[in-house]
């Protein structure tokens, strides 16, 4: 089996418009969650989110591109630009045919849907712009990445709600591992902060009105965010032969299904995915120093996740760190695992563990070192990234320092 490494990373999210600014914000424990600036927010009961403020699409794309690129596609392309730029790869000849793109998203072009439903229902218009379908489709971002960088190999989009990015990156990892591809551009994106996108989440009554405080006894729900994270996964021998700067190695991936409830998380399902990732990576549980938690800030997720970690790691659960960066950037839904993988890379490469901010009071059901409020210097050799989706679909990645 081929080894797989990461040779490029890119992002745009509520904490920053690139990887260095995101790392700086995570190290400072900065919060990117604030008042939502969207149409009709006065009719929402949830009025906060991890929104990318000051974003002007016209600064990055021309009019023709904007006619085809929903906000989630735009975020993807900006993150891909940074990641592929860092990798130093150009896709020509045989490499183009052996390279693909697999991305996660949950809502796809939800802003496009929202705007055009408004046009036809609210404003009573009888025609919409001709490119609504290619703009809103969930695979638009993956396709535009493949078009812009000439990635002609296996390419598709994964939609598993909050685990979409992790499932996508797991596919990319295994495709390189088994020889299906040399390079995969992977990660995910979400842009759900529109009136309909928030309204739907309000209905579930799991949203916080003031802050995301994962694992804190005072937590009162999740906060939505938006943005993208994109990575270049590359065959290790290929990366080594061209002298690429290797950010870290991807060593394992596992997924599981709770097969029980459409929204309530299961400790067993989560534990099977975590244990599966360790087994796939062929590592002892004691090697894991850091876990980037799913950590949504809901009552159910956080206690279930801590119980699963305790089950898998036993006594070692007391000596590992597990933080949730959602406290800073919010829950990016289908893009969340990708942005959160950045925290793992920062821990492995820069030896700085991102904190769980907003932490106020210990919860006996979340008795784990959540790196409260302040980032920490630590030697981390192996890190996991958890994602547990609505629908009971779990996906966990394992990374090693290179």
């Amino acid at each position: 089996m081929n080894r797989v490494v990461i040779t490029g990373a890119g992002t745009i999210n509520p904490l920053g418009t690139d990887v260095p600014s995101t790392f700086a914000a995570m190290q400072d424990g900065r919060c990117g969650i604030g008042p939502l600036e969207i149409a009709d927010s006065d009719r929402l009961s949830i009025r906060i989110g991890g929104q990318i403020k000051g974003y002007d699409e016209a600064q990055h794309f021309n009019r023709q591109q904007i006619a085809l690129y929903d906000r989630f596609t735009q975020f993807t392309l900006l993150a891909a630009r940074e990641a592929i730029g860092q990798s130093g790869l150009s896709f020509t000849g045989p490499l183009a045919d052996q390279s693909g793109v697999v991305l996660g998203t949950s809502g796809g072009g939800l802003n496009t849907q929202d705007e055009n439903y408004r046009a036809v229902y609210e404003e009573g218009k009888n025609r919409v712009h001709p490119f609504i379908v290619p703009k809103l489709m969930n695979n638009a971002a993956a396709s535009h990445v493949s078009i812009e960088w000439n990635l002609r190999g296996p390419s598709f989009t994964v939609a598993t709600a909050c685990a979409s990015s992790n499932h996508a990156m797991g596919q990319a990892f295994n495709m390189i591992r088994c020889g299906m591809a040399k390079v995969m551009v992977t990660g995910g994106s979400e842009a759900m902060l529109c009136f309909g996108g928030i309204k739907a989440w309000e209905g579930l009554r799991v949203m916080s009105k003031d802050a995301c405080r994962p694992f804190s006894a005072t937590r009162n729900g999740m906060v939505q965010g938006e943005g993208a994270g994109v990575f270049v996964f590359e065959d290790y021998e290929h990366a080594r032969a061209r002298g690429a700067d290797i950010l870290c190695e991807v060593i394992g991936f596992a997924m599981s299904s709770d097969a029980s409830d459409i929204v309530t998380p299961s400790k067993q399902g989560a534990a099977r995915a975590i244990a599966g990732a360790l087994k796939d990576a062929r590592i002892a549980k004691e090697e894991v120093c850091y876990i980037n938690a799913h950590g949504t800030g809901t009552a159910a997720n956080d206690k279930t996740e801590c119980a699963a970690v305790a089950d898998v790691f036993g006594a070692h659960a007391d000596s590992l760190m597990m933080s949730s960066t959602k406290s800073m950037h919010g829950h990016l839904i289908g893009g969340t695992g990708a942005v959160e993988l950045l925290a793992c890379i920062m821990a492995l490469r820069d030896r700085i563990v991102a904190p769980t901010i907003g932490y106020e009071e210990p919860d006996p059901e979340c008795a784990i070192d959540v790196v409260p409020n302040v980032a920490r210097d630590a030697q981390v050799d192996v890190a996991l990234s958890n994602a547990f989706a609505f629908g009971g679909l779990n996906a966990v990645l394992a990374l090693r320092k290179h």
Partner: protein
Amino acid sequence: MSTQEQVISIIAEQAMLDTSDVKPEDTLEHLGVDSLGLVEAIFAIEEAFDITVPFNANDPSETDFDISSVAAIVAAVEKLKAEQSK
């Protein structure tokens, strides 16, 4: 603006040309307007003139909306305007 000026303005935007570079005798192919650009131009024409253009991208020759040149499009728009204002 006359119908011709409006149509030329819409086509020029799709072709990313100055309006002075779009002549009545030009074809869309000559101007570099591809099939997606054509569909977008037809949408813009419908919006600008408040008409419905009977155009099927699967078979542009199926309907009598003539797109063989800029002048033909202008004439077709004039015809639709007259028909649909009744």
